[in-house]
């Protein structure tokens, strides 16, 4: 969910241009300046990948590129950290790719 209110801790912002990205083929709304992880969280999507060994779901954890839990496939490139990747119009993101090198 995006914060639209204007408060003292979180003054209102004007986001970047509205774009659309595809998560596993499903379009979601995003704004330029957002990370793929942020856009997914805003859309209520929590599962970013499925682990190789026990096939368990994982999502965003550290948010700053350290933990590698938010790995997704972006435009065919595997193992991309969603938290460090800015959105771009028409970007194709896949989350359910299994396995990691």
């Amino acid at each position, binding site marked *: 969910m995006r*914060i639209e209110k204007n408060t003292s801790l979180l*003054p209102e912002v004007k986001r970047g241009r509205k774009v659309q990205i595809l998560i596993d083929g499903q379009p979601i709304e995003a704004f330029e300046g957002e990370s793929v992880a942020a856009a997914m969280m805003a859309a209520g999507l929590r599962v970013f990948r499925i682990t190789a060994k*026990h096939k368990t779901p*994982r999502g965003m954890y550290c948010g700053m590129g350290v933990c590698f839990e938010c790995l997704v496939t972006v435009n065919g490139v595997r193992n991309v950290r969603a938290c460090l990747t800015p959105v771009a119009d028409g970007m194709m993101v896949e989350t359910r790719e299994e396995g990691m090198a």
Partner: protein
Amino acid sequence: MKEVHYELAVIGGGPAGIEAAITAAEAGVNTVLIDRYPRPGGQYYKELPMQFSVHHRTKAETEGDMLIRLLSGVELTQYFNTLVWGIFPKENDNRWLIALASNDAPKLIVADSVILATGAYDSPMPFPGWTLPGVISAGAALILLKTQRILPGTRVLVTGSGPLLLSVAAHLIEGGAEVVGVCEAARPFWRAIPYLPTILGQTHRIEEGIKYFSTILKAHSPYRIGWSVVEARGKDKVEEAVIARLDKSLSPVLSSKQVISVDTIVSGYGLVPNNYLSRMIGCKHSYLPEKGGFVPERDDTMQTSMPNVYVVGDAAGIGGAELARLEGRVAGVAVAGRLGRLGHATAQWEYGKLRSLLRRQQRFAEMLGKVFLRGLDLFNLSTDDTIICRCEEITRREIRSAVEMGARSVTEVKMLTRAGMGNCQGRMCELSVRNAVMAFTGQSFLDMDKGGAYSIRPPLEPMTVKELAKAAEELSE
């Protein structure tokens, strides 16, 4: 080999690194500042995305803006979006080779001095269910809230230790989330009593704390002292949080357990110094839990046991942004002084000025370290079924088996189980594996050089074979 030479390389462009770079460059030191992220500021002064605009800025945002503006007015080289993947001693030379991965920076830099300002990351805190989507670190929550204006969840439990919890909870509430509780794991606040004069001297921090706390009270979010999350439950994502009171040994009191329905758990159990570069270089480290774990040993000028290698800010022990900025200035003065760019008298005068400011911040950091807890203090919240190494999906039971097979160090556990061999290169599991080895072998202390920490080798982050081959090609030219 194409190498570009600088007198000083500052690695990390947060509060500590920016101050170090400004101080040295203003004195005329030929300086390069390198940062992994697209823009300066680090995590603390992380700016809003370039595409966002805002009419009003918060106090911290203004402070960061001012520092970054200062940086842009100084003559020095800056590379962002640039990963330092290795630092090596130059043969027969007292200089350092720094290997970079980036689109615009050279592949290799030679520097006479290195200031590491690589910051810290959230302390991983393994508890049953902590790998479920929806369990996020305090840092991740603040990045979403402050720099993306996105609410990480609608029904949120904030759990951990330290003043950061208040900030996270207050931001969540203002953003529109229901904070179903704040669990502060630490109890003996009396440990703060000897530090009262120090605390009372930090009026701006008291004001901030009161502001956050009143927001939490107004929202009727229960603030529980001596409590922690003990389990996250859910199918594909977190649906319930189990919280419990902690006893004196920091184990959950089973009879106190409560189940709360949530969609998000924010876990903020302190920070861990990002010490991988100082370890790769071979600087001596000591274990200081109140500073977040293994920290480099330093002299008064922030120099480590390796000549001309300095570490400043949270990378050298958790102390916060204000301390980090002062340490950065001290190291900047030291480098400039050594190169003769500041007269001896000027350097001494600068030191004198900084030292009294430093002492105050150091004492405040020491208080926080003594009063509050970190992930490494709460090993008892994991069970044998808890995943310890998130990347390789290694449970505590598997580490116990490795110890039963004879493993006596984290490096031996790594060889037997693959814990620490995944993408994060051990950053998420190292201190927990160390705790597990100590618990299962009955050792009370495990030093870094006795196998208490993983050995750090380049590349510092996973790189594709293609990227490495390209780097090797350019290096051999």
